[in-house]
C-alpha cells in the first residue's frame, strides 16, 4: 500500500484502537483488584463527556499547546505507519511531549508546574533508551526507515534482546504505569492533584486523552518492529508486553523521580549499550 494511505488509516483508526486498549486495560486492572470494573467502552464515554463540558481555560496559550500535543502525536504516528524515518518519528514524538510540558507550565498552578517538571524528568529518563532502540534497529537492518525495518526478514529480537528489555522498561514510563507514573496518573493517586493535567479541563483534557491513545498505538507499533519477521508472533508479543505492563502497574507502588531516572538510565546503559556493543564486537568491530 502507498504510505499516505497507511498514514490516513492510522489517523482514523488509532484513536479507536487506543481507546479500546485503554478500556481493556481498565477492565483487566479492575479484575486484578477483585472488582467488576467499568464497561469496555468507558474511555470513549469519558472523552465524550469531556467534550460536553464547559471550556474553562486558564491561559489562552494552553489551547495552542494542547492542540500541538495532539497534532504532533498524530504526525509522529503517521510518519511511523507510513514507513518513514524512525529518528524523525522520535523527534516528532518528543516535540509533542514538549508541547504538553509547555502547556502545563503556561498555567499558574504549582501542581501543574510540579507535574510539568516531572514530565520533563520522564522525558530525560526514557529518551536515551528510545534512541538506542532506533540505533539497534539500524545496526541489525541497516536502515532507519520503518518500511525497510518491517520488510527485512531478520529476526530483530534475536539480535536485540537487551534493547527489547530496555524498551519494555521505558514503555512503563511512557504508558504512565505505576512505578513511574510521576507526572500524572490514571489512578486515584492525588499527592500532586493531577500533575501535568491539573489545569486542563473539558475539551482540552479530552484532546490530551486522544493524544494518549495515538501514543499507545505508536508505542505498541515499536514492539511490533522487534518481531516484524512474523506478524502472528509480533501481535502475541504486543499482547504479552501490554499484559506485563498491567501486572507491573498493579504490583508496584510509585517510585521517586530519582529512582525513575536512575533505573531508566541504568537499564538503558547496562542492557541497551551492552547489547549494542556485543553486536558491534561480533560483527568484527564494523558499523555496518
Amino acid at each position, binding site marked *: 500500500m502507498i504510505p499516505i494511505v497507511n498514514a490516513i488509516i492510522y489517523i482514523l483508526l488509532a484513536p479507536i484502537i487506543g481507546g479500546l486498549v485503554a478500556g481493556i486495560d481498565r477492565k483487566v486492572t479492575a479484575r486484578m483488584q477483585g472488582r467488576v*470494573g467499568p464497561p469496555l467502552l468507558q474511555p470513549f464515554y469519558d472523552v*465524550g463527556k469531556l467534550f460536553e463540558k*464547559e471550556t474553562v481555560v486558564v491561559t489562552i496559550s494552553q489551547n495552542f499547546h494542547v492542540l500541538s500535543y495532539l497534532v504532533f502525536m498524530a504526525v509522529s504516528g503517521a510518519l511511523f505507519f507510513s514507513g518513514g524515518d524512525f529518528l524523525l518519528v522520535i523527534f516528532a514524538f518528543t516535540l509533542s511531549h514538549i508541547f504538553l510540558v509547555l502547556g502545563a507550565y503556561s498555567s499558574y498552578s504549582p501542581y501543574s508546574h510540579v507535574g510539568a517538571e516531572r514530565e520533563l524528568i520522564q522525558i530525560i529518563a526514557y529518551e536515551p533508551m528510545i534512541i538506542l532502540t532506533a540505533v539497534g534497529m539500524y545496526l541489525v537492518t541497516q536502515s532507519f526507515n520503518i518500511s525497510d525495518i518491517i520488510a527485512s526478514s531478520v529476526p530483530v529480537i534475536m539480535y536485540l534482546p537487551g534493547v527489547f528489555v530496555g524498551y519494555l522498561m521505558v514503555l512503563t514510563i511512557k504508558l504512565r504505569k505505576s512505578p513511574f507514573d510521576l507526572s500524572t496518573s490514571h489512578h486515584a493517586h492525588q499527592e500532586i492533584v493531577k500533575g501535568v493535567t*491539573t489545569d486542563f479541563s473539558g475539551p482540552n483534557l479530552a484532546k490530551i486523552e486522544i493524544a494518549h491513545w495515538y501514543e499507545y498505538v505508536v508505542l505498541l507499533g515499536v514492539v511490533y518492529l522487534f518481531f516484524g519477521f512474523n506478524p502472528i508472533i509480533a501481535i502475541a508479543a504486543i499482547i504479552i508486553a501490554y499484559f506485563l505492563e498491567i501486572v507491573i502497574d498493579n504490583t508496584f507502588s510509585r517510585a521517586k523521580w530519582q529512582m525513575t531516572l536512575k533505573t531508566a538510565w541504568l537499564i538503558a546503559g547496562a542492557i541497551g549499550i551492552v547489547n549494542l556493543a556485543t553486536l558491534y564486537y561480533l560483527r568484527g568491530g564494523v558499523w555496518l
Partner: protein
Amino acid sequence: MTYLSKSPWILHYDASSCNGCDIEVLAALTPVYDVERFGIVNTGNPKHADVFLITGGINSQNVEIVKNLYEQMPNPKVVVAIGICAASGGVFRECYNVSGGIDTVIPVDVYVPGCAARPESIIDGVVTALGILEQKKLAMNVNPGTGKKSPGET
C-alpha cells in the same frame, strides 16, 4: 441521554466532617461497592470533576475553600451534600463557627441523609444527581448563555 451520566467524575471534600461520612464515601470506591462499574472516578481535582461530594457542616475556616472548589468546577456540575451535618449542620448546628449546612454556602442539588450516611444511600444520591446533571446539560444546550451559572448561584 448524554455521556455525562456514563462518566461522572467526583470530587470529595471534607468540610469539617467527623470523618464518619468520609469513610463511607471512600467505602463506596472500594472493591466491595466498586462504583467504577458506572464510570465513577474519584478525581482529586475540581477542574476534572462533575459531581461534588461534600460532607460536614462547613465551619468559618473552610467557607472560602468550598466556594473556590465549586467555582473551579466546569459546568454542568452538581453538588451532593452527604450526611446530616452537610444537610443542616446536624448536632453542630448551634456551634458559633458552623454555617449549618452546605446550602448556606453553595447551591446543593441532592441531600443524602444519615449519620453516617450508608454507602448504598451515597450511591443512590449520586445516581439521583446524575439525572439532575443531565437536565442541567440540556438546559445549557437550549440556553448556552445561562449555562455559565447554576440556578441560585450569585
